[in-house]
């Protein structure tokens, strides 16, 4: 029996209120071998946190009526301290945005106008030194 390909797939949580962007991220993540769990609002995301282990999270800073993405990122960092947490934010981040990112344990900020496939590609490259859902190091 071969030991190759024994690493379990990484699991990603996407929390974006815009349906088109959400499906774009889901598709981009799946094509890169991630298991993608999606949520359009805060309550659904919080429920997902209780049910899955996440290696990666992509959270929009503005979830519309669905809530604020920054505190959700903070919760994700507390629950999954080794996860790569990306926040989508409009335009170039300013000092206040960077401060919110640092203080909520965010790994990286991406301009939400970028294509989901580009953002997922950047995340895959940056988070490749993380751990899998089994806690196995994949450096």
């Amino acid at each position, binding site marked *: 029996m071969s030991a190759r390909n024994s690493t379990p797939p990484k699991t990603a949580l996407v929390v974006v209120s815009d349906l088109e962007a959400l499906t774009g991220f889901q598709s981009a993540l799946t094509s890169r071998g991630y298991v993608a769990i999606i949520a359009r609002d805060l309550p659904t995301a919080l429920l997902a946190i209780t049910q899955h282990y996440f290696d990666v999270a992509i959270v929009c800073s503005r979830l519309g009526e669905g809530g604020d993405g920054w505190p959700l990122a903070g919760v994700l960092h507390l629950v999954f301290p080794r996860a790569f947490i990306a926040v989508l934010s409009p335009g170039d981040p300013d*000092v206040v945005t*960077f401060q919110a990112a640092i203080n909520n344990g965010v790994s990286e900020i991406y301009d939400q106008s970028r294509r989901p496939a580009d953002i997922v590609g950047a995340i895959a490259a940056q988070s490749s030194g993380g751990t899998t859902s089994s806690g196995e190091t994949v450096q």
Partner: protein
Amino acid sequence: MAHKPSLLIVDDEVSVARTLQMVFEQEGYKVASAHSCAEALHLLNNGGRYDAVITDLNMEQPDIGLDVARAAGGLKPKPVVVVCTGYASSDNSRKALELRVDYLATKPVDLKELVPALNRMIAHRQDLKVWK
């Protein structure tokens, strides 16, 4: 007896360092202080181990506190790293994010936010050690 968390405070303004030292000693911390980046790096590179490091950003040079954050971030176990600055910019705060600084506080420091935030981060770090 509960473990007394250790803290290194780095600030070239002696009055600021002394005030923070008094505040955190009242909170039950064992506090050491350094008044320059060079002094802090000497402590960190010569066996100084702390549960947390709070560093100013502009000391001998602008943004040199990032060198303290980098050195602290390279320690094992990694202490909680807090940067306090009155001169935050997009450039230095991006670098702080890239260095995985745990908390960025702007001066004048709001102690009602910083103290509980540091207590919480250290407690969380301790929990992770227990669960490892």
